[in-house]
């Protein structure tokens, strides 16, 4: 389940008013989330939640559900 907070950070980074984002949604399915924007979205999530991702963690993300779980795991540490 994608939290409203994660969803809002993604939408605001991509300048979208609304978009359905579910666990299985992948980055290329969201308008504006292309390879050039990917780093911006990741940095925005890191800043918002005050967490740090390692490169390998970012590369393993397959969908937004993975991103949510990564954020959750960092916050519980």
């Amino acid at each position, binding site marked *: 389940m994608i939290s409203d907070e994660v969803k809002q950070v993604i939408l605001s980074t991509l300048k979208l008013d609304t978009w359905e984002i579910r666990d299985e949604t992948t980055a*290329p399915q969201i*308008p*504006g989330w292309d390879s050039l924007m990917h*780093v911006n979205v990741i940095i925005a999530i890191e800043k918002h939640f005050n967490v740090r991702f390692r490169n390998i963690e970012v590369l393993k993300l397959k969908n937004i559900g993975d991103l949510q779980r990564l954020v959750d795991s960092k916050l519980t540490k």
Partner: protein
Amino acid sequence: MNTRSEILWNRWCANSEKHPDRDAIIHWVAGEEPYRWTFANLISVAESLSVSLLENGIVKGDVCAIVMRHNKYLYPLYMAITNVGAIPAILAYPNPRLHPDKFRQGLEGMSQRSGLDWILTERELEPPITPLVQKENSTIKGLHFPLEWDEERRVNEEARAHLMAVHNSIRRSDPLLLQHSSGTTGLQKPVLLSHRAVLQHVEYYGQAIGLNDLDKIVSWLPLYHDMGLIGAFHLPLAFGIPAVQLDPFEWVLAPSLLLEAISKEHGTISWLPNFAYNLLADKILDEDLEGISLHTLRMVINCSEPIRPESHYRFIKRYLSYRLNPLALSTCYAMAESTFAITQTPPNVAPSCLSVDNSALAKGHVRSTSNGVHARVCVSSGKIIRGCQVRIVDENRNDVEDGNVGEIAIHSVSMFDGYRNYPEKTAESLIGGWFFSGDYGFKYKDEYYIIGRKKDIIIVAGNNIYPEDVEDAVSKVKGVVPGRVVAFGEEDEEIGSEQISIIAETNVRIEAEQSNLKMEIIKAGMAIDLSIKRVYLVPPRWLIKSSAGKPSRKANKERTQNRAEPLRWS
């Protein structure tokens, strides 16, 4: 070896005999130990793959498209194709965003234009590609899955003799490789290069950048792009020095991987398109740079996109404390039609920057100015490399005097022989041995400055996008007046590149419906793997037509930028 008859395979074998245990290609995958191909291993596996290619019916002159992800066997496979006299053409692996039908259509257009004979790919792409092979009048004879072959099998004497007979029939003037310009619908221009062109280029360009035995190339560039294929693959392999190959998909998601590879492998040379300087300067946090040292880098060469001085300043500022030599930043002007480089700045010399009067420049004259408000800073792409000649010409293709803007025309010993199966395009641009590039620039004190282009191509992060591709996709969106769309590039200073903008005529007036329409237009771009960043919706008959009766990209772009009248834009 008589160098006058030498072909690439012989050069690679000579390098393997000279330095059998030297690293040739270091295949880099994030989070894993890199796989290190020595020159001897690479030749041995390539030879084995050559036999498999012959057994699978591939013969001299066949065009073999390679559609694969970052895989360590891609390099020996490419070499093997050349060893049997066939012609490798590396194509981009489809992005997950690209609809399978669109991928197939793009491949079909390419195959009709280039005459692709075989597709060497991964099993995963069998379903979308098979219908294309089965289609009536398809040029494609079949699909192969070389990653399922036994790459390490021993080659028996009979097979070796057969291979040798095939190999001995290859001439230096024979085609070595096929490269495609970007695009998705078959608008790509297939550039065929000979062994002679590539070997000659390696020698002369190597001299221009002072390539030596201690150099090590580090690259994330895709091998379907001339900068990656010639600069970061052919150049080191023919010269006998190592190259570190990163996965372009991984790099763009985690750009600090390039710096990690340079630091760990003591890389000395890297080519980057302009946007990469911005990305590396602005989007990497200090925590990702722990232990990084860039002191071994002697050249970081900016190529493939218009060079923006601000990008260099930002990059130098960011990495000075990581021991970057500011004089390592260098520039180059290159294109696939002349194999790769045409001009290059020398090692250890900062590229010249010229502050010129912008309004005079718009009229085609170069006037130095110190008035910052009306100035444009142009960055030199350096002097002509050996074996190349450059002219700056007016619209009648007469030479203009130094200090005046014109189209850049090139003559080179490494010139292509024309676009494959595209005589009309060849006739337009290759005249009397001179290639008319469509790029605008000027010569000043023996250095060349590239400032724009005649063609409407949009360059996004080093990739050439044909506006026709975007317009065609957007025209089909319900609510857009068919054929009443223009696509063009708009400068994005933050990323240091261009982004795609659209102006579309529509009868839709209600604001909420216009928002939906904009989203549908953006999604139409996504379906062909293109990001449309800005959508301008305008009423019917708003677009200015050119003298040919089609909406003019240039005039309509200027109209939106002048904002003389209200527009709806995303």
